C-alpha cells in the first residue's frame, strides 16, 4: 500500500491519520472542546494549523473561528495536543494516547494545578458542577458502605452522616479559569492558572452594542456586559488568556491581550522556546531562558560544592 494519509471531517471532529502497516498515527480535533483560540496554531512547529475566521453576519452572534489542519504539513508530533488549554486536540498512536514530544522532553506539559479537598464540602456539591462554565466537574455521593447515592434528599439524617462525596474534575480539558474555586464551598477546589497575562478592553473603541468577544468567550464570567455603559468589560480573575475574544473583535486594538508566562514542566527545548515566543513574546522567552540558566548554574554549584545556593529567579 502507498502511504495511507487520510483526513476526515465530521461536524464533531476533524481526524488526520497516517495508517502505516505497523503503526497508526491519529490526530483528532474535537470541535466540542475547541473554542477557536488559535493557541494550537501558534504553537505548531510546522505551521500546519490554520484558523479560519467565520464571516460575521450582521445582527447575529459572532461565530468562533474554525480550525483546519493541513495533512501535507502535519507531522503528528502532538504539540497541539500538549498545548491546547481546552484539551481539544488528541494524538493517538495505535489507539493509545501518546505524546512522544512530552516523554522525550522536547515539549513541556502544562501544569494544571487543581487541588480538590472534599472534606471541606459544605452543603450540596451540585453548585460545584454548575460553577464550571465548561461542565468539567462531576460530583458523586457514596454511602459508607460504598453504595452510589442518586439523590441526597432521599436519605435519613443518620444515613447522611456517613455519606462520602467525591468531586471529579476533567483535568485534561480544564483551562484553569478558577470559577469553581470562587463559587464552590471555600477551599473545596483550589486552582492555579497556567496561562497568565494581561487583557484590556478599550471600551471607547468598541462599536455600539458589540458583544462579539463576549459571545465567543468560553469562560462565563471572564467578560461581562456592564449596565452602566453597555460595553463589555473584563474580570481578570477568571480570564485564561486564550485569546478567543481577540480573534473575533472587529476593531483593531479595541481588545489588547498579552500572555506573559505559561506554567509548565521544566524542560530545555528549541521547539518550546519557539512556541513560547509565538505565544507570549521574545522578552518572556529571554526571561525563561535566564531563569533556566540560573537554575542550571545553581544545580552545578550544588553538585560541586555540596551546599545549597539560593536561587535567584527574576
Amino acid at each position, binding site marked *: 500500500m502507498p502511504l495511507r494519509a487520510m483526513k476526515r471531517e465530521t461536524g464533531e471532529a476533524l481526524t488526520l491519520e497516517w495508517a502505516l502497516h505497523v503503526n497508526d498515527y491519529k490526530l483528532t480535533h474535537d470541535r466540542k472542546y475547541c473554542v477557536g483560540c488559535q493557541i494550537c496554531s501558534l504553537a505548531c512547529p510546522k505551521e500546519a494549523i490554520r484558523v479560519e475566521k467565520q464571516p460575521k453576519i450582521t445582527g447575529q452572534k459572532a461565530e468562533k473561528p474554525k480550525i483546519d489542519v493541513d495533512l501535507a504539513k502535519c507531522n503528528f508530533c502532538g504539540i497541539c495536543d500538549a498545548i491546547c488549554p481546552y484539551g481539544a486536540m488528541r494524538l493517538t498512536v495505535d489507539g493509545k494516547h501518546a505524546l*512522544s514530544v512530552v516523554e522525550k522532553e522536547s515539549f513541556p506539559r502544562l501544569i494544571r494545578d487543581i487541588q480538590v479537598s472534599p472534606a471541606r464540602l459544605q452543603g450540596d456539591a451540585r453548585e460545584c458542577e454548575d460553577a464550571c462554565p465548561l461542565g468539567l466537574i462531576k460530583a458523586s455521593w457514596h454511602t459508607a458502605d460504598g453504595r452510589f447515592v442518586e439523590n441526597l434528599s432521599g436519605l435519613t439524617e443518620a444515613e447522611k452522616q456517613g455519606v462520602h462525596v467525591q468531586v471529579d474534575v476533567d483535568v485534561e480539558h480544564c483551562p484553569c479559569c478558577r470559577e469553581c474555586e470562587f463559587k464552590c464551598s471555600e477551599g473545596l477546589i483550589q486552582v492555579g492558572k497556567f496561562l497568565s497575562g494581561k487583557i484590556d478592553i478599550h471600551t471607547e473603541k468598541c462599536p455600539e452594542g458589540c458583544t462579539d468577544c463576549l459571545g465567543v468567550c468560553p469562560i462565563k464570567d471572564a467578560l461581562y456586559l456592564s449596565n452602566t455603559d453597555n460595553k463589555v468589560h473584563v474580570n481578570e480573575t477568571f480570564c485564561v488568556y486564550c485569546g478567543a475574544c481577540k480573534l473575533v473583535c472587529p476593531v483593531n486594538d479595541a481588545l489588547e491581550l498579552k500572555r506573559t508566562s505559561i506554567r509548565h514542566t521544566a524542560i530545555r527545548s528549541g521547539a518550546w522556546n519557539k512556541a513560547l515566543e509565538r505565544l507570549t513574546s521574545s522578552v518572556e522567552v529571554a526571561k525563561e531562558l535566564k531563569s533556566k540558566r540560573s537554575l542550571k548554574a545553581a544545580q552545578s554549584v550544588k553538585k560541586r560544592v555540596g551546599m545549597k545556593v539560593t536561587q535567584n529567579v527574576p
Partner: protein
Amino acid sequence: MYREASAEMVGTVRKTRKRGRIKVQKRPRIGVFVCQCGSAISSLLNVEALTQYARTLPNVTYAENMNYPCSHQGQERIKAAVKAKKLERVVVAGCSPRLYEPTFQSCVSQANLNPWLFEMANIRELDTYCHQASPKETTEKAKDIVRMAVAKARVLEPLQPIELPVTKRVMVVGGGIAGINGALDLADMGFKVYVVEKTETIGGYMALLDKTFPTLDCSICIEGPKMVDVGRHPNIEIISFADILKVDGSVGNFRVRIRKNPRYVIAANCTGCGECKDACPIEYPNYADMYLGVRKAISVPYGQAVPLIYTINRDYCIECYKCVDACGAREAINFDQKPEEIELNVGAIVLSIGYDMYNPKDLEWTSYGKSLNVFTALEFERLILAAGPTAGKVVRASDGQKPHSIAFIQCVGSRDLSRYEYCSSFCCMYTLKHSVMLKEKYKDAVDVYVFFNDMRSNFKGYEEFYNRAQKSGVKFIRTKLENRRITEDPKTNNLTVNVETEDNEPVSVNVEMVVLANAAIPASTAPELAKILNVPLNKDGFFIECQPKIRPTDTDVPGIFLAGACQGLKDIPYSVAQGSAAAAQAASVLRKDSWLVEPLVAEVNADLCSGCKVCMSACSYNAIRMEKSGDKETARIVEGLCRGCGVCSSACPMDAIKMPNYSDRQITAQIGAVMQKEAET
C-alpha cells in the same frame, strides 16, 4: 562517427589542428574492392559486371572482387594490392561503414596509407537488402554508389587524429550493486573513484531485499560487506545525498558540478552512534520500509547504511534540539548547514543509476491503493524481512492477522502495451523466491498461488529453482494477461482473483492477501541526467548503449559507460558483471595519458567567422564556444564534445565551418557523379 582512433591509425599526432590545407593530388591512383559477402551481395547483383564497371571509372587503376574483404585473407589482399599497384586511395564496396569502416581504415594504414584516404561504398544495406526482387536494377544502383564513392575518393584528404589529455579519476553515478562493483574494481586498479549517490546511503535496491534468488542468501549479508569496502577504500570517496547539476568537458576531462544536499549533520564529526536518534521525539514514514514503518526525524534509513552519517529531515523536524544535547561534545549537528556545490574533474564516468518501481495505483484492476491487503512485491519483501517493520511477520494491513492464502500476480504494468511493453526481467524469479520462502516458513499453513503467463527462469540455477517451488507445493496457474481483476470483500477484506486461462476458462480464487509483481521502470532521474550527459534514452526511458550486442556498456559519448539496470533491467549477478565490465571500459580510458579521437571534428575558419552564434544554437552537443580572436569573437569547436554531425557546417551563413571528410568539395563531387549518370540517360 566518434570513436577512438586505433593505435595503428596514428601517424604523427598533432596537438592543435593546422588550418592550412594539405595539397590534394590531382590524379590519385584508386583501387576498388568489391565484396561478394557470401551470397548477401553476389546472389543479388552481378559482382563481376560491377568490378568491370569500376575499372572504367577515371583514376581507378585497380579493381577486383572477393569474398569477405573483411576477413584476414581479404585484408591481406588489399594491403598487397595497395603496395603492388601503388594505390593512393582505397574504396571497398560492401556493407555499412558503421560495421567495417574501422577495420578497413586500420587495414590501409598498415599498408602505409592515411586511414582517411579510404572510402566505403555501401551496396548491401542501401542496395541488395532493399531491392531483393530485381537483380538487374541492383547492379545499376551499385554502379551509381561505386561511382559516387570513387568521385569522393578522388578528393579525399589525409587527416590526423586529435589528442586529448586524460585525468586519472573516475566518477560512478549511483551506488547500487552495479556501481559498488564498478567502483571497487576501479579503485583496486589504483584509480581515484568518486561514488556520487542521490540518497543518504549507497546500496540501492539490493540493500532493501530479504533474500536473493536462487540461493536464498541473505541480501544485505552479501552486499553489506561490499558497501563497507566502498566506504573504507582509500581510493574511493562517497559523495552521498548529492545531485549532479552539470557536466562539461569530454572524455579524459569531464568537469562535474555537484550539489551536496545538507544533512544538518557534520559528516566528519558524526560517529554513527545513534544517541541523537534515541533522543528524537519525531517519527515519519520510512521510504526504505516502503512506508510500512517509520524512522526518526534524525536517523539513517537502515542500520547498515554507508556512509553511516545521520540525516535530519527538516520536513518533519520540530527543532527541539534534543539531538544537539544528545550529541554533546561530538558537536556533529549543525542546523545552519547549507547546500554545498563542488566541482570534480574526472576522465571517465560510469552511469549506474538503477531503476524505480512502478506504482500500480493507476491500474484499476489491481485494486492496489484501495484494497488494504494488496501489496507490491517490494512491500512484501519488507514484510518478510526479519529486520523489517513487522520483524519478519507476514501480516495483513486490514487486521494484522497472518494470511492463510496468498496470491502472486505476475506482469503488473510490464508486458502491458498500455503501460510498459517490456518484460521487467526479474519478477518471475523474485516471485518464485517469495513463494518458496513462504512455503518454507509457514509450510501448509499458507496456500500460495502464482498467476503467471510465462515463467521466465532462464539463467543458471533458475529453472532448478522453479522446480523447487513446484515441489514445495506452490500452485501455479497460467493465465492470460487480459481480463484480470482483483476484487475485495468489504466485510472480511479478503480478495478474489478473477482471471482467464489461455483457453478462455474463467478462474476465481479467494485469498487473504495479494502481492503484485509491479513493473520496474527507469529511474526518475534518468531524463535529467540524459540531458546533462547527452546520453540518449530509448523509448522506454533506459539509457541507450552504443551497440546492443558487442558494446553493451559503452554509450555514444566517449568516456561515459553504463552499468546495471539503467541500461536495461537485469538481476543482481548481471548488474555485478556489468559493473565490472563498465569499470574495465573506464580503465581503458584512464590508463592512457592521452586519448586520441577521430579527426572528424568541425573546423572553424576564424577569418570568415562573423561571430553570429548561429552554429551555437544549431549544435545539439554544446560543442561550440565563443572565443576572443584578435578584435572579434569567433566560434571555437570543443574537440572532445563535437560528434562530427555537420549541422553547424550547414547552418553557418558565412561558410566558415568545414567538416573534414565531408567537405563541400567532397560532397559536390559525389552529387556530380550521380548527375553525370542522369545526363547520360
